[in-house]
């Protein structure tokens, strides 16, 4: 479904990604783990078109999307949950969700989609008129995830959804990711919290300083001695 092939991304002169390739198949959950500053967020931003890849190709459902503007990429069915549950703080919860359905493909279904989301997240329904900035960290993360569903995506990319959340809330977030997985969304999840992420993963990549250093399915990841000591804390 998504094929990233040998992309290089730069911030000015600084190279953030070096020849990164990865694949996400339909309905699959793929995780990218690695330390802070390894380029995980940059990877997502490059796929979405917020950053330009200098070389390499990004194909989504067989079509080249590298170099497209973000709004074109979103239209094709990729959505992103930004790091730290970044929502629009002065917009109401409802308006935040509505922004998610801005693209012309999603707009006709917006009302139905929003009702579904409210049944899925009753807490958001209760607070739909409240400013998003008044929500708690966990609620904000939920809202950011819910918002990404509004664009009728086929692939959802999540950037560090557990960042800065209490353990109990992290569990909730991952339960929800599990649920999205069951509903058939393809998921590309970027996480520092490798333990949690591996539990939902079908396939995993390890990125260090902008380069892919290891890839494999969940079992091989679990068993790799380097990953065990460095990332799983075992």
């Amino acid at each position: 479904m998504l094929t990233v092939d040998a992309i290089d991304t730069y911030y000015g002169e600084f190279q953030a990604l070096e020849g990164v390739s990865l694949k996400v198949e339909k309905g699959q959950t793929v995780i990218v783990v690695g330390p802070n500053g390894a380029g995980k967020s940059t990877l997502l931003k490059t796929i979405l078109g917020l950053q330009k890849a200098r070389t390499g190709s990004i194909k989504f459902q067989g079509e080249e999307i590298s170099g497209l503007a973000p709004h074109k990429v979103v239209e094709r069915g990729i959505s992103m949950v930004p790091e730290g549950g970044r929502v629009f703080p002065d917009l109401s919860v409802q308006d935040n969700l509505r922004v998610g359905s801005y693209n012309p493909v999603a707009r006709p279904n917006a009302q139905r989609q929003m009702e579904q989301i409210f049944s899925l997240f009753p807490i958001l329904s209760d607070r739909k008129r409240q400013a998003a900035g008044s929500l708690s960290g966990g609620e904000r993360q939920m809202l950011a995830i819910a918002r990404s569903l509004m664009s009728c995506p086929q692939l959802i990319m999540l950037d560090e959804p557990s960042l800065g959340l209490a353990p109990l809330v992290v569990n909730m977030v991952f339960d929800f990711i599990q649920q999205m997985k069951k509903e058939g969304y393809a998921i590309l999840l970027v996480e520092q919290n490798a333990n949690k992420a591996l539990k939902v993963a079908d396939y995993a990549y390890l990125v260090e300083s902008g380069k892919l250093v290891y890839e494999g399915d969940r079992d091989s990841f679990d068993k790799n001695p380097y990953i065990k000591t460095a990332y799983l804390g075992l």
Partner: protein
Amino acid sequence: MLEELLMAFINGILLGGVLALLAFGLNLIFGVVKIIHMAYGQFVMLGFYFIYYFHTAWHMPLLVAMAGGIVVMGLLGMLVQLLIINPLLNAPRLNQLLALASLIIVLENLAQVLWGADYRGIPISMPIIQFGDIFIRSSYLLAFLGAIATLGILYLFLHKTYFGLAIRSVAQDVEIAKGMGINPKVIYYITLAAGGALTGVVAAFFIPIYTVHPHFGASFTLMAFVIVVFGGMGNLMGGFISAFIIGVVTSITAVLTSTEVADILALVLFILMMMVRPQGILGAKA
């Protein structure tokens, strides 16, 4: 004297409505595009001239001429986005300020070349309404009501349409808005078009009140600045309230002293506000 002051107060409120509309456009552009539109008052001046021209040279009925002026100003707003703001989006703030300041030179002299340095106006006699000893010019009242109605429409546009929603989200966080599939460039064009059209609307309300000349806009740019800063840059509600405060304060000061002193007072308030409370009257302490 008391009647005079009361009348100044009422005029200040009435004019405050139009100023609120003017400041709203400047504020919206600042909030969304993060650009200070230095030539905003000059846009009002151009709008005035276009309506005047459509009416006197092309013999359009006044209302049609006004509609025409509003459309032309909206298009000019987009042209400014295309030719000046787009190339400077990532330039230092100072270069943006100076580019729009050079636009002032271009627009004022363009008006001078096209229409000459004389004062121009469309003579419309509108009745004066009398309440006891108080006289209210119906042109002011009409402008006030029209401005409030326009602000209402703008509010609905911002809160009830997808474009309005997109405008508000870009104003808050461009990066995330992009990730939601919003193309900020399109939003910038819409914002500048709306801002431009608003100057046309303001000009239309000014037609029965003022006559126009090439340097007509300068004082309105400053007035709009003062109001926007007073209410907190980007804070639309703050701008709305401060328009009335500034309107009343300058109107009363002008009656007591002179218009220059009134303008000086407004600017001094602006400077003090920038120093002591740059977030404006309604803004949260940063």
